[in-house]
């Protein structure tokens, strides 16, 4: 197993362990009072892509934010504290699950409004291009977000200005309970929209972390070399409900059959990676078990720290609505 392969699998296991730990506690405790979109089952996309980026590259995501945040190296303790609404959270408890940010790690932000962050990534790439910095912006969004006008406007802009931005569509085939076929023309793919702008693109098995990583590396290098943007459509599936920790088939009248969910669980990206590596690395299962233990412990510690941390002080409620009033702002009240 190469060190890259090792990292990819390890990152997936870490995301899985953190997410499952949080999902369990989320349901049991009802203390993370923030709507939370888990990426369990979709770990390969974030792990594969972010490993292709440098720390100085910047990732933006939509609401399904934990996995890209962690894969990009976002601070775990700060994320967990954010979910618990603590002042030590990565957004000081103000943003919650959908508004993560870790600037030091190059996680530029996640947002809850569909399609909103896609142009933001383009703007970051524009700034890089203006500076001549060899940096790349990446943006994760879902199949559903690609229906928003901003998606198209952003692709067009990026292509006109040949900006270093990788568009990463995590096509998990649903927008909440709506299947793709109710929302986009059957027989088409999202990458075809990118092709309409002449943008290079690839359609990749989003559960094959090695394939994702290979495509991500190509995309990032394409951008970094000044060739303009790149589009990736990664087909994957979420195992849990859209928002929250539950399983869909826990619920009556689910919008997707249990057999469908099961077929994707059978295509677990971690298990798939292990299967692919086992011949060359017979110890892979033991390694994964060890990582599993390590990361569940790590997640547990993060939870402990988050619980021990303080809530924000209510007297600071207004802080950050505006910049500090330093340079001669008038006496008017906002």
């Amino acid at each position, binding site marked *: 197993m190469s060190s890259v392969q090792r990292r990819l699998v390890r990152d997936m296991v870490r995301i899985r362990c953190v997410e499952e730990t949080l999902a369990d506690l989320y349901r049991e405790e009802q203390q993370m009072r923030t709507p939370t979109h888990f990426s369990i089952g979709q770990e390969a996309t974030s792990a594969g892509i972010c490993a292709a980026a440098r720390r100085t590259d910047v990732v933006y995501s939509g609401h399904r934010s934990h996995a890209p945040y962690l894969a990009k190296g976002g601070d775990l303790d700060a994320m967990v504290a954010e979910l618990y609404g603590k002042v030590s959270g990565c957004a000081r408890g103000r*943003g919650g699950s959908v508004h993560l940010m870790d600037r030091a790690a190059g996680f530029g932000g996640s947002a809850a409004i569909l399609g909103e962050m896609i142009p933001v990534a383009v703007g970051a790439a524009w700034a890089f291009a203006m500076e001549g910095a060899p940096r790349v912006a990446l943006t994760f969004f879902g199949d559903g977000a690609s229906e928003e006008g901003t998606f198209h406007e952003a692709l067009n802009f990026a292509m006109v200005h040949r900006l270093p931005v990788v568009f990463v569509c995590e096509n998990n085939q649903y927008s909440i309970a709506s299947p793709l076929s109710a929302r986009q023309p059957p027989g088409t793919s999202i990458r075809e929209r990118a092709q309409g702008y002449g943008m290079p693109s690839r359609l990749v098995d989003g559960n094959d972390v090695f394939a994702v990583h290979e495509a991500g590396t190509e995309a990032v290098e394409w951008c970094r070399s000044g060739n303009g943007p790149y589009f990736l459509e990664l087909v994957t599936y979420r195992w849990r409900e859209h928002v929250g920790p539950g399983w869909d088939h826990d619920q009556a009248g689910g919008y997707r059959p249990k057999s469908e969910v099961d077929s994707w669980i059978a295509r677990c990206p971690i298990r798939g990676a292990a299967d692919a590596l086992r011949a060359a690395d017979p110890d892979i299962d033991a390694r994964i078990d060890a990582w599993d233990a390590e990361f569940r412990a790590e997640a547990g510690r993060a939870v402990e720290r988050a619980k021990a941390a303080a809530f924000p002080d*209510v007297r600071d409620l207004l802080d950050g609505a505006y910049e500090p009033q330093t340079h001669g702002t008038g006496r008017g009240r906002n």
Partner: protein
Amino acid sequence: MRKLTYWQAISEATVQCMAADPGVFVAGEGVDDDKGIYGTTRAAYERFGSSRVIDVPNSENACAGIAVGAAAMGRRPLMVHSRADFMFLEMDALVNLAAKWRYMYGDQGGVPVVTRGVVGRGWGQGATHSQSPQSVFGHFPGLYVATPASPADAKGLLVQALRSETPVLLLENRGLYQVEGDVPPEPVPVPFGRGRVARSGTDVTVVAASLMVYEAERAADLLARQGVSVEVIDVRSIRPLDDDLICESVAKTGRLVVADTSWARYGFAAEVAAVVAENVPDALRRPVRRVTPPDCPAPVSAPLEDAFHPDAGSIAAACLELVGGDGSAVPRLTGVTAGFVGPY
């Protein structure tokens, strides 16, 4: 009269209007799914099926324009957003097109699109999933903007909307969805622009819309026990606004508190204060008080969120201040989200 919850009242109005008028259809992201926008579109889907309760792509601006086009051809679209915040994306279609259609094309017919937006405080919804954009839309002539506070009005205002020839926005607060009240079984329209005295009183007038009416009534209960008599005015619609009812009440009490789930500046609270300053300034024995969220986006963290959202406690404190009482004597009330279980 039999009781329904607020969400059931919306559901019933929808089904009855669809039965009465084959032109009515429901469209929105997820309106056909199992959760059916907190249950409000579920019965309609079960009865009328996917040809009249229609899931749409995540394309708010185009969908609003599409609704305008369908309405111009005689259909009656009822567009639904699980969060009112998404309506900023369709601001152009609503404000530059739907609101102006009848006028700018020379009064040859309107585009009666009805748009429901759910204001979803829930918990931890944060800065972009819990806003109440009523005043932003209320600024524009050509629209009606209704803010039902009771189950009866949730039904009656929706019935009125679906019979109107003008585009209507209905902003519903999720905090009210489980509230029960008497609701007429028939689809009786409640006219826009006619407020209601939700509770009569003599010492202070609280003018409110939507959830804040409920909170004001709780505040009135509390203050009644302290010997303060609060009159609660539920405006029902913020455009048109029942200026007369507001002014009559303030003329009687001499004290005005305006409560809103959105910010003070350029908001509902500003307009109500202006109406009074314009019409009955002399009636004001004390300065007007606006009870609104503080001037920051909505935070997620629970203690901040509790401090952010105005409620019965903050309304009661403002009333007490105006009657010369001690605001700090107001006991902390249980919020409307108490008992709420996540994740939404």
